[in-house]
Every structure is written in structure tokens, then in C-alpha cells.
């Protein structure tokens, strides 16, 4: 189908993006950075088109729904969020992080190709407008936390073309400033939705519990920094733990544990 072709093209463009940012880091030519940014916008537009086309094609198949309902679609959407967050935080992000985020987007596009891409019907519980806002806010949060994660990792490394430690901490904090409210919104919209669908806004389902755990880790991050004066390594460590928790919330719960949120097959 058309959406597969467009999304395949997006994956190729992601490769190109990674290469361009790498070339910039090595050559430091402003023109390359400009080109990379233009390509980033273009890739984002094409990726968006791919998702919209898929949405449209679900109507043609008689199973109309936003492409957010199984693992394949969610991986595609996460890659989209990883591009979007770069555009949202363009003023803050140095090229090294742009490189990492594009590489992450590429990784998730590649990972998605391991799963069946057929458009499946939507079970009744997922037929809700809350689905859109819930998934969007959660995944934007996950994308912002990816930035925090890379800042945490780089804090412990000594590479050429790295931002200063202070800059890393600032970017880290800013990404949590975006991610934490988004994750809160994601959890809250999920709770409101659960209340409509199942009659209970919180049932300690594994996905819910893990999103709470993730949320707590970032709450600790904010308090450790602000009220306890923790900085440096400890905060960097917290952002790594936080993202590990994000990844477990996203995948671990589906592959390791079972519950209401599993992308049922």
C-alpha cells in the first residue's frame, strides 16, 4: 500500500539525516548543518504524510482508525515524535543530540519493519478520541525523555564535539521540563479514558503501574535538582534510570508482562 512506500522513503531519509549530521560534526561546515535542518523538516513532512495516508487507507479498508493501535504503528509514531521533538526544541539542541535523535528515529523505523504492517481492525475499547491525545502526549514525553537520556549518557563520556557538562545539564533539565508535563498529561488522559472505558480510572494494570514508576523517577529528578541541590553525575544517572523505565513501560510491559494494554495479537 501507499503508506508503506512513503514510510519506507522516510526510513531512507533518516539514514541521510544521520549522515548529514555526522558530516557536520566532522567538518563543521555551516552549510551542511543548514542542509541537514532542511532535510529534517522535509523528512518530518513526509513522515507525517505517511501516517495520514495510512489513516486514510484504514477508511478504505473499512476499519477506520488513527494509526496508533498496534506495535508497528506505535513504533512509526514514536519515530515521528522523535523528529517532532527536535523541531519543538530546535533552539536548545546541539548537533550531537540532533544526530542521536535522528539515529533513534531511524532505529525505531527499522525496528517497526520487523512487525506486520497490515492495518488491523480496532477493538471497541480503543475506539475513543482519548486514544489520540493519550498516545500523542505519552509519546512526545518519551521523545523528550530520549533527549534527557542522551544528555545523561554523554555526561559520563568524553568525546570530541561534545557540549560542555553545564550545557548538557541545562538541556537535560529542559527536556524534562517538556517531558514531565507531557507524561503527566498522558497518564491523566489515560486515566480519564480508562474511567470511560472500564469504569475505573486506575486499576494498577502493569502499564499503568510502570507509567507511574516512570513519572515518579522524573518527579525525583525535578526535586533532587531543585530542592536537594543534586547536580552532575547523580542527575545524569537519574535520567538514564528514567529512560530505562520509559523503555520498560513501552516494551517490557508488552513483551515481559501482560495486561490490558498489550498490543493484542
Amino acid at each position, binding site marked *: 500500500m501507499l503508506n508503506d512506500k512513503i514510510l519506507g522513503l522516510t526510513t531512507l531519509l533518516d539514514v541521510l539525516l544521520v549522515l548529514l549530521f555526522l558530516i557536520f560534526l566532522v567538518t563543521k561546515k555551516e552549510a551542511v548543518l543548514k542542509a541537514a535542518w532542511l532535510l529534517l523538516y522535509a523528512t518530518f513532512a513526509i513522515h507525517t504524510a505517511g501516517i495520514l495516508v495510512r489513516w486514510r487507507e484504514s477508511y478504505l479498508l*473499512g476499519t477506520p482508525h488513527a494509526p496508533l493501535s498496534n506495535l508497528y504503528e506505535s513504533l512509526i509514531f514514536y519515530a515521528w515524535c522523535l523528529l517532532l521533538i527536535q523541531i519543538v526544541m530546535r533552539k536548545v539542541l546541539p548537533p550531537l543530540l540532533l544526530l542521536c535523535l535522528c539515529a533513534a528515529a531511524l532505529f525505531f523505523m527499522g525496528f517497526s519493519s520487523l512487525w506486520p504492517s497490515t492495518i488491523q481492525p480496532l477493538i*471497541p475499547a480503543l*475506539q475513543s478520541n482519548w486514544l489520540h491525545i493519550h498516545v500523542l502526549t505519552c509519546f512526545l514525553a518519551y521523545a523528550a525523555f530520549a533527549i534527557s537520556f542522551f544528555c545523561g549518557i554523554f555526561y559520563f563520556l568524553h568525546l570530541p564535539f561534545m557540549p560542555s557538562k553545564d550545557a548538557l545539564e541545562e538541556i537535560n533539565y529542559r527536556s524534562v521540563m517538556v517531558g514531565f*508535563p507531557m507524561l503527566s498529561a498522558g497518564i491523566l488522559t489515560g486515566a480519564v479514558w480508562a474511567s470511560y*472505558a472500564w469504569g475505573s480510572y486506575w486499576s494498577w494494570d502493569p502499564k499503568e503501574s510502570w507509567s507511574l514508576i516512570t513519572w*515518579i523517577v522524573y518527579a525525583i529528578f525535578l526535586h*533532587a535538582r531543585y530542592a*536537594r541541590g543534586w547536580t552532575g553525575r547523580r542527575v545524569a544517572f537519574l535520567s538514564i534510570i528514567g529512560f530505562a523505565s520509559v523503555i520498560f513501560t513501552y516494551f517490557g510491559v508488552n513483551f515481559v508482562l501482560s495486561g490490558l494494554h498489550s498490543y493484542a495479537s
Partner: protein
Amino acid sequence: MAVTNGRPGSASPNGRSRTERLLTFLGSVRFAIFLLSFIAATSILGTLIKQQASSEEYVSLFSEQGYAVIHIFGLDDVFHSWWFLLALVLFSLNLILCTVNRFTLFLKNRSSEALPKESYLSTLALTFFCQGTRLEEVQRLCRGYRAVLTSQQGVILEKGRFAQYGVFIIHTSILLILLGGLLGLMLGFKGSLNLPVGESADTITLRGGGEAARRSLDFSIRCVDFRVSFYENGQPKEFLSSLEVVENKRVVLKKDVRVNDPLTHRGISFYQATYGTDAAFEFVIGGKSVLLNEGGTFRQGSLALMVVRYAPSVHDFGPGVQVAYLDNGEPKAIWFLRDVPRLREQTIAGIPVKLERLTQQQYTGLEVTSDPGLWFVWCGFFLLMAGLYINFGFYHRRVYLIPRDNGVMVAGTSRKNREGFKREFERLKERIDA
């Protein structure tokens, strides 16, 4: 004074009593981080260990000893264990103390504004001296800033003051959500109701309370119709029940309840959860047709019978229904077999009873809940989002203007978003210099 235990020596060397120190600790961020870590860590256990399973399941998963440990610590139901609840209560206490402390401090600082000392101002990173201008002139150029204090010695200007309320709104909202949860736990209930099409019920089965836990409603609910549609691959696409609420024999509310679209009446909500079919048995008793489910009873005069169970095949004679009845006060049971004429029609207490048909009866499965804390939770959610928006979308900053003989000294400070403020301050400097 907060000295309450009156024992000598209870006051510490620095003059604070034990109670005061305890309160300080209970309201500290250190304790908050400890509690949050504890809640997170135990939640992890609660997802890794299967919850609310049967003891046999635990023994097969973890062995006898393993199960003993799990049971003693309540790890088979972490989120409803007393220590998890205790952690949440302590956390609420912690948050209350912390918020009250901070808020009183905040108000005190507000009511006693004073120009900081020269020595403090000179330590600020953002300062410049503006030669040959007057203070009023500079103040006019600080657009969007509001004067907090105006005196001979100088002026304090600020912007984004309301951003400081963000944290208080956030913390209060968390308390509101916890309060709502507690109210729901204490005053609410959760249950389910399987309602065959065409029937009505005024009691529901409470969840987790075993077979006997039932609760009667102040009204009855009737399932007028149930419909389900399927995708081409046979997966259910939509299912809905047409429900009616009946009070004093009058229909007071009608609604088609779908997944994601419940019916609510008198604070009790009915959610479309599942559906299914029950075996139903049509008997002709004394010439009258009666439809009974498994467990269904029928009573007429001296005849009292109950359908005990259904078996698809009784000794190779085809499907049958076991019926219990009272014979002169003595309980007896007989089988009705559909395909054996002699056993299809039998006489109980002198009345002929015939198993007419075996049918399937569709029922709708409803979740029934009542949660008086729900509105607290919703308000908490709204406030939390508003507080986060205020806290992270805006920031508080101050500019000090100190008049000198030949100009004005300008100093700026912000506790958050220092980078952003630095840029703003530089633009201000350019504007004043121009």
C-alpha cells in the same frame, strides 16, 4: 512552643525540640524522595509478581517457601497492602507539611519586602551601570515589570510573579487526587451485572467479595436490547446495550450504552464491559412456558424447583438438565433429557414438567461502579495540568534599580530559566543604553 513531651533534654542543642525536628524531617524533600523511591520500588514488585492470584498458583510459581514470604509481606496484593497504603498516607502528610511550610514562608517573604544589601547585589551575575539616566527613566523602559517596592534607596521590579504559584497548585492537586482516591476506596464500590436481554435487575455482584457479595440498587435496570456488529475477520466492531432505568415502575432514563460511553444514574455508572450467551431452558410447567437459567428457580403452590446444572451429554443420551426439587420437604434431584421422551417429561409434586427446548440467551456484561471521589480526582487532574503549565511555561524574575549620584545601577536575578533571563536582561540593557 512545640515541646510536647516535657522530658528534660528533649530540646536539642540548637534549641529545637524533638517534635520540631521530627516535623521538619516529615516535611522534608529528603523524606519525600525516600517515600517516592519506596513507592516506585514496591510498584515494580507489584508488576513483576503476579497479583491477586490463587495460593496454588503462587506455590507452583515460587514454591512453598517462596509463597510463605510473599504472603507474609503481602506481595500478592501490593497495591492494597497496609504498608503501601501507609506509604501513601505518609506521603500525603509529607506533602501537606511541605506545602504548608513553604507557603507560610512564601507569604512571610512577600509581606516583608526589603531592598537587598549592596553586597548581595554586587554578587549577582547580571548587573550593569547606566550612566547619566534617572531611575524613573530606566523603570519606564522595563516593560512588563511591576514595582514591588519603591523607596528612596531603590526600586524592586518583578515579572511572572504568578509562576511561583505553579508549584503550590501542583502539590495541592496531588493531594486532591490522593483524597479523591481515598474517598473512592472508602465510599465507592465496584461490581458487575450480567443482564439477559429483556430482563431487569436491581442487585449487582460486588467485585472481590466472593459469591455472596451483592448490593441492591435503589432502582432497577433493564436490558431492552443488545446488539453486536463484527468486522469481516470476525472480530467484534461494536457492541451496545439499550438500557432503561426503572424507578417506581416508571422508566426514568434510557440510553444506548457502548464501550467508552457509560450510563450514569444517581452516581452509579454502568459500563459496557463484555457480552456472552447463557444456556437457557424452556420448561412447560403445568401447561405454562417458563424460561430458566442455570441456578434459576421456579415456585408455584407446592412446587419448588431449581435448575442445578446443564450437561451437554448425559451418559451418551444427549443434552440434559438436572433439576432439584422438594418432595415433602426432602430435597431430590432428577435429570431431564431432551432426547429421551420418557425423561423429557416427568411429574413433580403432581404437576407435569416438560423440558421444551434448550436455547441460548444473550446477556450483556456490565461493569457497575460508584465513586464519590471522582470529582476530586478530575479537579486534581485539571489543577495538576494547570500547575505544570504555569510552573514550566513561565518564570519569576526580578530587577533591582538603585539610584546613584551619576546614574542607576541595574541588577537582575531569576531562580529559574537563567539562560532565558540572561537574554531578556541583555535586551533590556541594549534598550536602556540606546
